[in-house]
């Protein structure tokens, strides 16, 4: 029962500067991000975020999510914390952002602290390392499958395929830092993505 005020009224939105598309409770936001972060043991947090936010909850469209993810990568800060702020803020303004961060980090901080306590007191955690080794292999798979699934939707045509291949080669194979990769490729993608009226 979501009421869509999506595109029409733009311009100044008085109070928070934001208009939630539909009301999500702060508790729901916190629990959702808590679920995302706990599910991500072994890694693959971006893939989990997409799985929950786009596929399950439908809070964002595929494209909106992907562009938010890249913006959160460009901005300083941990990508996932940034994404939580971004999504929380989109849904519920400042309290939403805080609820999302809180949900994302509270339990993991407690877990990491417990592990740190164990580590600095007993100096090793062998069983845990074995479990995590297996989980990490599956978490990588989740990330790869996210690339395959979103790629199937976004990479239609030769220009997007070229952009995709170029940044994969530069960032993944040649291990360039993110900034030089984007300095070269972001202007090209914007040029391609710019809405055009009638030129062909």
């Amino acid at each position, binding site marked *: 029962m979501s009421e869509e005020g999506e595109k029409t009224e733009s311009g100044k939105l008085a109070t928070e500067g934001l208009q939630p598309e539909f009301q999500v409770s702060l508790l729901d936001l916190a629990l959702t991000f808590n679920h995302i972060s706990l599910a991500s043991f072994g890694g693959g947090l971006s893939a989990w975020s997409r799985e929950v936010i786009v596929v399950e909850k439908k809070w964002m469209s595929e494209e909106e999510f992907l562009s938010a993810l890249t913006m959160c990568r460009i901005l300083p800060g941990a990508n996932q914390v*940034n994404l939580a702020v971004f999504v929380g803020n*989109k849904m519920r303004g400042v309290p939403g952002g805080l609820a999302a*961060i809180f949900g994302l*980090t509270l339990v993991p*901080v407690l877990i990491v602290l417990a592990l740190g306590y164990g580590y600095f007191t007993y100096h090793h955690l062998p069983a845990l390392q074995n479990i995590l080794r297996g989980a990490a*292999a599956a978490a990588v798979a989740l990330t790869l499958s996210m690339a395959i699934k979103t790629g199937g939707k976004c990479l239609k045509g030769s220009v997007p395929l070229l952009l995709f291949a170029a940044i994969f080669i530069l960032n993944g194979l040649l291990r360039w830092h993110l900034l030089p990769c984007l300095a070269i490729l972001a202007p090209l993608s914007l040029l391609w993505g710019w809405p055009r009226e009638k030129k062909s």
Partner: protein
Amino acid sequence: MNVRTLIHLLTLFSALSLLSIGGGNTVIPEMHLKAVKDYGWMSDSQFADIFAISQAAPGPSILIVTLVGYKAGLEAGWGQLSGVIGAILATLAMMIPAGILVYLVARVWENAKDSAFRHAIEKGFAPLTVGLVLASGYVMSRTADHDWRAYLLTAVCTGIFVTTKTNPLVVVAIAGVLGYMNLV
């Protein structure tokens, strides 16, 4: 608790928060330099170990700062209590400055719903993001998968995720059990 340690934690991590362009892992070398060499909070190998713990534990991998703060607090006196205080301070200092920046950008973004610029970013950045996700999957597989069994497990799981609607948590948990039994 030693107040200078508190101040060092706050200044170090709020600075790193704003310097971590491209994600938390980009400032790991700087964090290592400060925590091990400059402040002497821990040894080289301890830093490497808490890095591994924070990478594999659930939640954002940047929670390595929680453990750096914890160890710095332990070193500062008062035992576990100052450790926990250090952990909380470091975690907040790492998240808040960057979080405020994201908030400001998100506001502008939300107000620019119909701008050509936003449309261009949403359409144009999608292929780049897919490429970056694939790149991080590739890089992660090089560090997570140590032998052919792990690569095989990753390949099988990828197939499951792409072709079925199995709950990923089930798959990750099974993989964790395989790891526990030393099969991977």
